[in-house]
Every structure is written in C-alpha cells, then in structure tokens.
C-alpha cells in the first residue's frame, strides 16, 4: 500500500522518443529516455508490473517442474510390472468432465478479473464463488478417481507407471487445492479491505496461477490420459 504512494501521480506528458521494452523494472517514459544506456530510465516500474513479472517467472519454473514429472511419466508408462495399464484403468468420460469443469472455472476467474478491474465488488465475489465451486467439483472428481484406483489395488505402490501417474496428477491436484485456499483468501481480503493496490496485485497473481493450472491440465489430459490410454 505504501508502494502506490511511490508512483508519481501524474506522469509528465512526454512521448518517448524510442520505445525500448527491454528495460524491465524501469519506466520507458521520462526525460532523456532514448539517450540513457545501461541503466533504466524514468525511475522504477510500478510494483504492479514488477510483482506480476516475478510471479510469471515463478509460474514458468513451476511448469518446468511439471515437465520433469511428465518426462518421468512418459518414460515409465510401460513399466506396469504385470499390473493394470492405463487403458484398463482410465475413465475417459470422467476426465472429459474434469476438463470442462476446470476450463469453465478458468473462464469464471477471468470474469472475476474483469469485475475487479471494473471495481464491481458484487460481481467479483459471485464470479470467484463460481470459480471455487467449479474448481472444487474438479477436485472432488479427481479424489474420487484416486480412491477408486486405490480400492482396485492400483495405488501408487502398485507399479512404476502408477507411481508416476499419482505423482503428476496428484501434484496438479495439490496445486488446485492450494489455489482454492488462495481463492477464498482473496474473496475475504477484497470483502474486508476493498480494492486496495496490494490486494489487486494479489488477485492478479492468483488469476495468473489459476490460468496456468489450466494450461498444465491440458498437458495432463493429453499426455497422461489420452496418450496413456491409447497405448
């Protein structure tokens, strides 16, 4: 909240002579913009941009971690140790419903972002509630699938294939769980504190996180379920 005071209220009406986008952390506008080299110009970027960019880097590192799990799954897919294969275990209809739920929750999250930017509190809370319900429905279906697999003696200890399966899908599920807790926190914070700049930044990071989870799920249903059940 103190950071917003650091942003100059009225920027000078200077048209930059040359737009250099690679001065991250610095304004592109300002006096002597095109002559200054090395250091950025015009003072530091707003905290909004720095925070979102930093969170973007975190998300990309998170996706790199998922890539390692996907690689493990792809390599261990055939290692069923005489146990059931993906084609025997996976319920593709269930996966399709999960996919639609997560996609719709991503859309609802986008509506919540729009409501936040339009400063419409009621619409924001409603859209976030819908996002939560859809995400919780996704998680419930996934947990039901997991308990069903364990009950059929196809738990993570059964084979290398199932270990890799539970790791990659479970890790995504853990991210969704953390996202749902974060979502509730954001609803409470907007409700209690209003549209403060620091709260806006947190909601922006949350929406990035939620959309990124949907992107990872695209890889999950493609690599794990569809390709895993085809072989």
């Amino acid at each position: 909240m103190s950071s917003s005071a650091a942003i100059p209220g009225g920027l000078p009406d200077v048209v930059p002579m040359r737009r250099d986008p690679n001065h991250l952390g610095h304004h592109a506008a300002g006096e002597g913009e095109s002559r200054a080299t090395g250091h950025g110009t015009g003072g530091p970027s707003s905290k909004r941009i720095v925070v979102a960019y930093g969170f973007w880097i975190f998300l990309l590192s998170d996706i790199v971690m998922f890539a390692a799990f996907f690689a493990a799954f792809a390599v261990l897919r055939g290692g069923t140790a005489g146990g059931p294969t993906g084609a025997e275990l996976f319920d593709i209809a269930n996966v399709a419903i999960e996919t639609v739920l997560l996609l719709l929750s991503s859309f609802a999250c986008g509506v919540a972002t729009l409501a936040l930017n339009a400063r419409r509190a009621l619409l924001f809370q409603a859209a976030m509630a819908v996002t939560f319900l859809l995400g919780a429905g996704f998680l419930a279906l996934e947990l039901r699938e997991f308990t069903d697999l364990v009950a059929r003696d196809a738990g993570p200890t059964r084979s290398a294939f199932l270990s890799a399966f539970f790791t990659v899908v479970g890790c995504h599920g853990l991210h969704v769980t953390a996202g749902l807790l974060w979502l509730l926190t954001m609803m409470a914070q907007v409700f209690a504190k209003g549209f403060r700049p620091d709260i806006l930044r947190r909601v922006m990071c949350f929406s990035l996180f939620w959309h990124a989870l949907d992107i990872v799920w695209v890889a999950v249903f493609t690599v794990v379920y569809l390709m895993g059940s085809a072989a």
Partner: protein
Amino acid sequence: MSQTDDRAHADVAPGDEYAHEEFGSGLRSYLIGLALALLLTAASFWVTHTQVMWAPAIPVALLTFAIAQMGVHLVFFLHLTSGPDNTNNIMALAFGVLIVFLLFGGSVWIMHHMNTNMMAPIEGGVRMPLQKGVPLQPGPGMPMQHGGGGHH
C-alpha cells in the same frame, strides 16, 4: 488510478491488457478463448475414439491440439501479445518453453534409446551367449553402433 497511466507508457504485466477497463471487450476475449478451448478439447477426445484417423497419427494430432490449446490460453486468458510492451513476458516464456522442451524431449529421447539398445535382449527373453568375433544381430529399427555393438 495511477496504475492505468503507468501501463500506457511502460511494460505490461503478464495477464494485463490495455483495454481491460472496458468490461464488455474484456469479456469478449474470454468468450472467444473459452469457445476455442472447448473446441480443441472436444477435438482431442474425439480423435482418440474415432476410427477415421490413421492410428499412428493420433499422438501427433493430440500434441497438435494440446499445443494449440495452450496457445489459446496464453493469448485469450493470459493476454500475451507479440507487442513490444510484452517482450519481457514473451522472452521469459520462450526460455521456459526451451527448458521444458529440453527436459521432456531429451528425457524421452534418451530413455527410448536406452530401452531399445540395451534392454531389448532382456525383454525378449532371449539371451544369446556372446561369441567373440560374431556381432549381435541389430534389432529392427536399431541403428548399428560404431564399433559393432554388444561386446560388453
């Protein structure tokens, strides 16, 4: 808001878009993204169940649909553009994609060759006794190693 002024002059944060003060145009972007993503999802699930497609081409089709859908998410949900204000976000993404490609593709490539070149005799259940001077028969699709493989 002072942030609005700021965005017009400098970099754009990932997930941000210029015109997002207008609720309607923002919603339109999300609706287009939702429709395209649903379409690509349906295509992915359909391809695995149809008999129309040549079976070996199915994984290629699935990968194509998945990459396309990720692109749809990035453009319509995360508002990544090719504009100059997004250069930093795109460069970070490009680096991430490079690492993902090296990690995933490299692992699959290496382990596939390890399997076919080293594990094949065990999985086939046949263990030929090694004879000096008689090179092992290379399996189907297995390239001959330099130095005549199988002597260790």
